[in-house]
């Protein structure tokens, strides 16, 4: 600690250069924080699924399945509860801002009891109201919707039987997410599948996917195989998978999120290495006579090595912590902006911070290694003479 003021002063020897470098590091770690949140968001389903599986068409998740499968699935040993949902694709007044809206079975929210909170009175009101809808708290807040209010959605895919695209709903419930990581789910708009099925002119007795709660998560493989066997060689073969796998498949419509995020991070950190490596090399080159003075005064080679390395790590850590801190601040805002279009981005959490801090240390050491070795090896008389 007694060397801190020396390291700190050396870091700010050229203020403008240090500020620009800090800004680069900050930007890199802001990106890292956000991309790590994206990667985590697409993996969070598995941690929270706790024995929940999704049954969708083997051909494509956009392909509907018959409701007649319901009874067969319910009879598969190990299946505890079954619900279903269908993508509706409607919008409120204008196509943007987008929010996800689904026609769901009446027991749908109950299947996700560990995830959503809906007051019992509102749950009953939903069950009793044919055109009732429950919406997430964030969505209700966004549009200023209140309980009892009638809300029209304009169909993007499914027109009504009378040919119009106007679907009217009554807000009877407002749910909240129990887990802060799933705040994005509060952008959903859910209404009765029965109301949808009877009212739409496009398809009847079809659902987008089934949600299956298992009696025991350990039975997942066996139950999945049994469910898929029900429709084998039919025109509606199914693919039963974990919630995480389903989400990953959904996300792969965009691309391999993990690969994209990893690629961007690699490019960013490679650029950062070159940039800060060059900056540190330049900073140490300018200070060779000063390092020689330190050695003249009795600073040992390894102390000079440690001072330069510490300066490099401090530079990266300072920018990195600011960048990741900024990511923590930006993520909630992004969640609001991208709500529904994207899984909710979680905060970085201790794992993200630990990874980030580890990266800062590693990059700092790599970037500082060559300049530090140069400082350590310099010959005092040559350096003082400017040779």
């Amino acid at each position, binding site marked *: 600690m007694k060397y801190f003021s020396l390291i700190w002063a050396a870091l700010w020897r050229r203020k403008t250069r240090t500020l620009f470098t800090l800004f680069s590091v900050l930007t890199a770690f802001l990106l890292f924080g956000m991309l790590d949140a994206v990667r985590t968001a697409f993996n969070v389903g598995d941690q929270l699924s706790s024995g929940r599986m999704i049954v969708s068409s083997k051909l494509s998740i956009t392909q509907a399945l018959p409701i007649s499968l319901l009874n067969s699935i319910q009879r598969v040993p190990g299946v505890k509860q079954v619900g279903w949902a269908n993508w509706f694709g409607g919008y409120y007044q204008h196509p943007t801002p987008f929010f996800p809206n689904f026609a769901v079975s009446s027991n749908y929210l109950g299947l996700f009891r560990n995830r959503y909170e809906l007051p019992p009175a509102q749950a009953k009101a939903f069950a009793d109201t044919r055109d009732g809808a429950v919406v997430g708290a964030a969505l209700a807040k966004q549009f200023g919707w209140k309980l009892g209010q009638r809300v029209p959605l304009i169909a993007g895919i499914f027109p009504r039987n009378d040919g119009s695209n106007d679907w009217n709903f009554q807000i009877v419930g407002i749910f909240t997410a129990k887990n802060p990581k799933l705040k994005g789910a509060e952008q959903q708009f859910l209404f009765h599948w029965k109301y949808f099925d009877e009212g739409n002119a496009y398809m009847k007795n079809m659902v987008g996917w089934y949600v299956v709660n298992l009696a025991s998560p350990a039975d997942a493989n066996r139950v999945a195989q049994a469910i898929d066997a029900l429709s084998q060689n039919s025109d509606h073969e199914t693919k039963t998978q974990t919630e995480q796998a389903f989400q990953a498949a959904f996300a792969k419509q965009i691309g391999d999120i993990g690969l994209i995020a990893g690629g961007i991070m690699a490019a960013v950190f490679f650029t950062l290495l070159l940039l800060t490596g060059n900056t540190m090399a330049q900073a140490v080159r300018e200070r060779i006579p000063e390092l020689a003075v330190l050695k003249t*005064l*009795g600073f*040992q080679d390894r102390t000079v090595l440690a001072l330069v390395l510490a300066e490099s790590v401090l530079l990266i850590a300072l920018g990195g912590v600011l960048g990741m801190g900024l990511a923590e601040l930006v993520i909630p805002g992004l969640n609001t902006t991208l709500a529904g279009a994207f899984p909710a981005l979680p905060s970085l959490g201790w794992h993200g911070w630990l990874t980030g801090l580890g990266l800062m240390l590693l990059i700092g050491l790599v970037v500082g290694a060559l300049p530090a070795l140069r400082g350590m090896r310099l010959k*005092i*008389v040559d350096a003082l003479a400017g040779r």
Partner: protein
Amino acid sequence: MNTTNATGGNLIEIRDLAKAYTRGKQRVPVLQGVNLDVAAGDFFALMGPSGSGKTTLLNLIGGLDTPSAGSIVIGGQRVDRLGGAALARWRAAHVGFVFQFYNLLPMLSAQKNVELPLLLTKLPAGERRKRAAIALQLVGLADRAGHKPSELSGGQQQRVAIARAIVTDPTLLVCDEPTGDLDRASAEEVLTLLQRLNREYGKTIVMVTHDPRAAEHASHMVHLDKGELVGAARVAQPA
């Protein structure tokens, strides 16, 4: 060549000292057959033309470089046999350095510059600050402690450098052209200060200079020419 005075033994004893540098495939001798004794408490001037080897000799005495041959004993320690970390520790404990261009760290205040050698000690921060303040007071710059080198004149910077050199209370001060970058008045101030450190605080000073007026402040001087000592003189000191 012996400059031992009557009041004490030799602090520095140099025997058959030689130093050569290798430039490419060529071996360039800089010092050869140098024998020199400097008494403890002496103010000793090394004079000579450019390239005569005086700075090389000073660097060897200060433990900044190692000789090609011969021995250097300072305070009973074979300095020429020390290497790496041991030599660094010896410098930190026994030698204070004053350079022509001050060599202060530009981003640190005068106080922090003076504190630098104390970072190598186990003194607590408060004690380091206190000792640096005393050293600055001694050189007459207590009121400039918070100023950075760029905010000080050349003479003031050199006095800060002297404060840094004495803050650990070393036995030996090595000064390489300490007035070479100063105007006459500032040079006189610095030389008077060095003289005071020699007389009042008993510091042994070895100073390289090519300025005869600077050398007049020393009690002894020797001349180097082409790497060899060519003459010694006792300097008349004003009363």
